[in-house]
């Protein structure tokens, strides 16, 4: 019973995505094209975030702590 509710909820979320992006009115082949493009763009955003965000956060933290602390950091 719970599985059915979860599946219905996920289907309802998919329906909202179709309505908001107007792919509800598109023909099936246009919908497939749109979903492919959206999923590709989303995957690229996630991958880029996974690869680059931790490094950038660490560098920004070091930069700000150097400004605020005032002590010269040894560049090793």
């Amino acid at each position: 019973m719970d599985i059915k509710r979860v599946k219905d909820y996920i289907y309802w979320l998919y329906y909202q995505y179709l309505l908001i992006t107007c792919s509800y009115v598109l023909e099936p082949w246009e919908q497939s094209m749109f979903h492919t493009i959206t999923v590709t763009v989303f995957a690229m955003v996630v991958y880029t975030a996974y690869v680059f965000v931790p490094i950038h956060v660490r560098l920004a933290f070091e930069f700000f702590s150097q400004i605020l602390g005032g002590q010269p950091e040894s560049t090793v």
Partner: protein
Amino acid sequence: NPIVHNGGLYKRPFNEAFEETPMLVAVLTYVGYGVLTLFGYLRDFMRQWKIEKCQNATEREEQKDFVPLYQDFENFYNRNLYMRIRDSWNRPICSVPGAKVDMMERVSHDYNWTFTYTGRVIKDIINMGSYNYLGFAQKAGTCQEAAAKVLSQYGAGVCSTRQEMGNLDKHEELEKLVARFLGVESAMAYGMGFATNSMNIPALVGKGCLILSDELNHASLVLGARLSGATIRIFKHNNMQSLEKLLKDAIVHGQPRTRRPWKKILILVEGIYSMEGSIVRLPEVIALKKKYKSYLYLDEAHSIGALGPSGRGVVEYFGLSPEDVDVMMGTFTKSFGAAGGYIGGKKELIDYLRTYSHSAVYATSLSPPVVEQIITSMKCIMGEDGTTVGKARVQQLAENTRYFRRRLKEMGFIIYGNEDSPVVPLMLYMPAKIGAFGREMLKRNIGVVVVGFPATPIIESRARFCLSAAHTKEMLDTALKEINEVGDLLQLKYSRHRLVPLLDRPFDETTYEETED
């Protein structure tokens, strides 16, 4: 006790609200339109390079080098969005459009370019789309019997214009009745409501006159104003400060080049605006008209029969005198269950229109059974047929209106317009939800009218409910339950109960007293 705002002119509270579009919803709507535009360009590209068969109207081969006919935005929108959701409009009905209606089922196998009928008839759909405010669209009852009798007496066709041989005694009877109903000296009836506006405004004003028209006026008023050749200036919707500024400028500066005074200034307003559900601020308009000595043309197409304690329209709703309005126009299509329009006013005005109106000279006059339907329904509303059916209907409509609007607001939808107007626009905003709402409501056996661009601004698409005195409370409860379900399914409950306050300016900024000459 007069309500003290805007000069103490209102005898009852004026509750009108237009909730602001939520920012996220507006952004997502633009995103949706962006996706549709991209796919529209793709499909147009494919159609031009013959990858896909072109099913819409195009120029002929020999005309391909001429100036293109179908490249503007309206045609682009038509091909690429309207066609995809076209099955919510032009639905064929096959019974009288009363509180419940039968509809013919149709399917499309090529994405709404062509339709085929399955042969099945969907019965007893609750009709929330017909302009049937007092429920006179019936196939049985006193109106129908009287109309059938007149049909057997006079036939259906008139075969002439009003000025030649088409002036029946029924028309004279109707006009006297309409004049008595409205409380004016004299009235004239025409065959078509749209033609009443578009053909009579040119007879009243011409070059050298000024027309001040509301932003959201109906196409018939706009067409009539443009045909007349007068100068047209637009004031913001129901905004009396904007109207007063325009009037002041007109009186002070006169005509544009020669600075001569305007021959006539005519203010065009409607009683109820059907896309917004708002009611005109008539006391203020009349005060302004008297102060600046201009004329008022009031189009009561949706408000006659639907407002006022005895159904006599927006003038009675505000408790004003019909002599203050120079030209009272209305239609018989909405509350009387017939067709046609009328103009009422002073005797000299109507006698002038009888000779000079294009509609009287060139258009066929009203058909006799239709005239009888109007006469019977009007007598019913006035109570002259000896029953209280008319009064009961007017009161039922007012109750239905208040109940329906209150329930929808409580559910959390964004509803535009005045508390007392029987036209209820429910905001949808996103283009995919236009088609989805129409289809989901039809699946649940409720027929609604959804409206998008170009009848409304492009992001403010809406579903418009027209209440009727023929709707019982059970029908309204069923409809509200289904609207609630569809609202949850489609996530339509945008309201954050933050109403934009009406601009009631303090009393001393706008003076309505007449100036001493």
